[in-house]
């Protein structure tokens, strides 16, 4: 049986942390994402999540995103989304959480918004 694979790439930019996430985010691998995001929240308060490559996300993934948002807001920062896939947009909408994140078409636009 194929395991759920999530790919995470982190780019440490001047004012923003750019995190590119791809693959499948579910409860079997969300701890991996959560650990990376927690580590980032400890040193940067502005984060862009580039999520064009996410082909599946469950509420476990949403909780990791919300947890990051909470930490960034505490430090007067924000989490913004770049090019989220249709699945990400859909699940955020279904959960009623779509208004929580500003969404940009590209990672450059999202990074530039800070």
């Amino acid at each position, binding site marked *: 049986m194929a395991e759920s694979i999530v790919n995470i790439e982190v780019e440490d930019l001047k004012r923003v942390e750019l995190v590119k996430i791809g693959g499948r985010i579910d409860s079997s691998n969300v701890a991996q994402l959560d650990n990376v995001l927690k580590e980032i929240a400890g040193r940067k308060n502005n984060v862009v999540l580039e999520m064009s490559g996410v082909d599946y996300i469950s*509420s476990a993934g949403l909780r990791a995103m919300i947890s990051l948002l*909470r930490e960034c807001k505490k430090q*007067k920062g924000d989490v913004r989304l770049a090019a989220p896939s249709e699945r990400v947009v859909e699940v955020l909408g279904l959960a*009623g959480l779509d208004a929580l994140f500003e969404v940009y078409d590209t990672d450059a636009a999202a990074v530039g918004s800070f």
Partner: protein
Amino acid sequence: MGSEQSLTVPGRYKEIKRICEFIAAGAAQAGFDDEAIFRLELCCDEASTNIIEHAYGEEDTGSIVVSYEISGDDFIIVMRDQGRAFDPALVPPPPTINLDGTSADGSTGQLRIGGLGLHLIRNLMDEVRFSSDSREGNKLVMIKKLEAQTGKEAS
């Protein structure tokens, strides 16, 4: 139409994808499109996660039995476990999250572990029922109507 198909897996997060694939195959056979199949997978994922987190309390404590069948216009998914009784009806919907900083902090902090998943299930399925008894354990029935799907295909 189709007889009941059933799969039993250990209550472990890594097994949830297998449950999703099993349901996806059945849903594809029943005639659901990719979008609807994704939504059914998501519901099974959320329900399985809740079983491990709430009914069993942790991984590798018991098994999850998932089955599906088509009855008339209904695609019926049944998930069973032998853990603690966990009635989804008793879990309140997630709180509304305000966008200003302080409220968002408070509200997001209050999001319950199972609250979001159940909210998604309630939004996506046409019918959700839960029952529990000491002999048969917990039983979650989730029903999606095929009617809307075939109507969509015909148009």
